[in-house]
């Protein structure tokens, strides 16, 4: 399969302030440290159920969401913590949701796979693979009909390429020139199966067949993701129609926190290679240092501050009360 190199021109760098880069660094570190805490909560048996960690893919969520406004929409996936945080969610209410507590974003009723937040335009994470493609496209449809200039981003993994509804809505989006960006996070694995065993033909051709502008980008390079996402988002906002962006990335851990023994579907050497040579935070921090945008001490300071914040957020969630049992029948109907 041919993977087109990103067509992002480096000129955009000058248009972005240093503060923006530092903010993006903070967001990426937040996602990484959030997921470390999630794994810890699971390991200590403090978290009900499971979680699907986003570690390794941070540059995708941050690069995309930094190209959006707060009132733009996203839909997320079962592996959605990174998207929610990148769109502006607070770690304390997210941890509370993961623990099923009343203070959570969904009053504990959604859990890890269903975090939603109208205040940040988060239409919700979705536990059906490809389940939110219609919702994101519908949000773009409403934005167009209501005459707002909002854009919707639909995050999905490459596993969703097997779902027919994706192709139905891409057809609708291009017919009606809807402001929606389909972001395919290709982390190489549909659960426990390499995507080449499940995916015939070419990925981008699926979108270009509809006439949708499509590109592949190195999903470990936040600047590349941000650059091309900005171009796609502005194009959609101008009314020029949908985009399809394949972000090539890697899932550091298993399909979920309990997927420990993975050698039957991928090697430890492969995992080590990605972590050692293609880590999105390391790639970005190396660039920040080389460009003189930050000193090593500043990055360390940011990490420490975020780690302290995450510990406090976890403590908040653990100490928060569960919803009262009479909550069970509330919100079935509006």
């Amino acid at each position, binding site marked *: 399969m041919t993977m087109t190199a990103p067509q992002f021109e480096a000129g955009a760098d000058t248009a972005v302030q240093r503060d923006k880069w530092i903010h993006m660094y903070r967001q990426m570190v937040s996602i990484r440290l959030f997921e470390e805490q999630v794994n810890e909560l699971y390991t200590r048996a403090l978290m009900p159920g499971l979680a699907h960690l986003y570690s390794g893919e941070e540059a995708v969520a941050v690069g995309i969401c930094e190209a959006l406004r707060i009132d733009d929409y996203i839909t997320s996936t079962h592996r959605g913590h990174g998207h929610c945080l990148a769109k502006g969610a607070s770690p304390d209410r997210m941890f509370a949701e993961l623990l099923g507590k009343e203070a959570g974003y969904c009053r504990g009723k959604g859990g890890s796979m269903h975090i939603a937040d109208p205040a940040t335009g988060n239409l919700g994470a979705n536990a059906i693979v490809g389940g939110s493609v219609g919702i994101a*496209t519908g949000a773009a449809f409403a934005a167009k009909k209501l005459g707002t200039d909002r854009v919707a981003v639909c995050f999905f993994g490459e596993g969703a390429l097997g779902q*027919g509804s994706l192709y139905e809505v891409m057809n609708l989006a291009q017919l009606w020139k809807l402001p929606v960006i389909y972001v395919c996070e290709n982390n190489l694995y549909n659960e426990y199966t390499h995507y080449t065993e499940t995916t015939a033909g070419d990925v981008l051709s699926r979108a270009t067949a509809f006439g949708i502008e499509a590109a592949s980008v190195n999903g470990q390079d936040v600047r590349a993701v941000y650059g091309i996402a900005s171009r796609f988002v502005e194009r959609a906002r101008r009314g020029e129609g949908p985009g399809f962006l394949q972000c090539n990335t890697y899932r550091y851990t298993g399909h979920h926190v309990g997927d420990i023994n993975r050698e039957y579907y991928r090697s430890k050497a492969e995992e080590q290679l990605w972590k050692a040579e293609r880590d999105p935070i390391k790639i970005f921090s190396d660039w920040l240092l080389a460009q003189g945008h930050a000193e090593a001490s500043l990055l360390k300071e940011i990490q420490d501050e975020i780690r302290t914040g995450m510990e406090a957020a976890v403590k908040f969630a653990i100490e928060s009360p569960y919803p009262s049992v009479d909550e069970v029948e509330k919100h079935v109907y509006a």
Partner: protein
Amino acid sequence: MPESAIRELTFAQAVREALAEEMRRDSSVCIIGEDVAEAGTPFKVLSGLVEEFGSERVVDTPISEAGFTGLGVGAAMTGLRPVVDIMFGDFITLTMDQMVNQAAKIHYMSGGHWKVPMVMRTTLGATRRSAAQHSQSLHAWFSHVPGLKVVLPSTPYDAKGLLKTAIRDENPVVFFEDKMMYKLKGPVPDDDYTIPLGVAEVKRAGDDITLVATSSMVQIALGAATLLEHEGISAEVVDPRTSWPLDEKTLIESAKKTSRVIVLDEGYGRYGVTSELAAVIAEGAFYDLDAPVKRMGAMHVPIPFSPPLEDVTVPTEQTVSEAARQMCNKG
């Protein structure tokens, strides 16, 4: 209300009038579906709407039921009130993930933060010689799912009043129209009346037996009640009008009054709407019943094409009146 304000409209005209009034009242209401604009659907229910409201609000789609239903869910969450048109009820199979896993659950899963004020209009009913994939009555499936409401209008009056309520509801509502009833005429006021969801109506009062009937079966039950009247059996016809929310109280009160009940619904009885209604009545009126509650619905077969075969698959005035006669020991 002045006498002149009540006209005789067909069921199809009543549906169209409800849509037109709601679209005039609220600019966020739009129609999305296959051949809903110039074609006005194969049943011509929507004829004239695109001329008044334009193709921006009466939106023709590709043949992609899952796609445009999902689009309707997202649009409903973000400021529109879409009425999604699924031409034949059989095609709801293609929309199940969008309705069951998405629309029905979003309000609850989000802790009450997002809402899905969307209507799905679709059809039910056999005997149109349309064979197995265009004749089913599958409303039980949606009635089973928390988060959805299911409306089963049986007259032009009810169709208009219930559809207006459904469009104003903040939840996903599935509105099933009997495709054989589109030409049925009845009195319909031209004013802005609505009918609440979850309120049954006694369509005909009686003392000896209750016929609980939904949608297409209400006219059958009323016809059967007329036949029974000639034989001295007084049948009450109760129409729940919505399978969820369900007006259990009215059903139970009627059962207690007459002590005999037949439940009629054109869906399959097995794990179906008749099963639920019969259970509600059995639980609520057991000590007042003189006979077990009887269920009548579609036979457990795919709907056959051949007319003599198709006709025996659904209850008729004759089969219902015969069953009632036997239950009243006058067979």
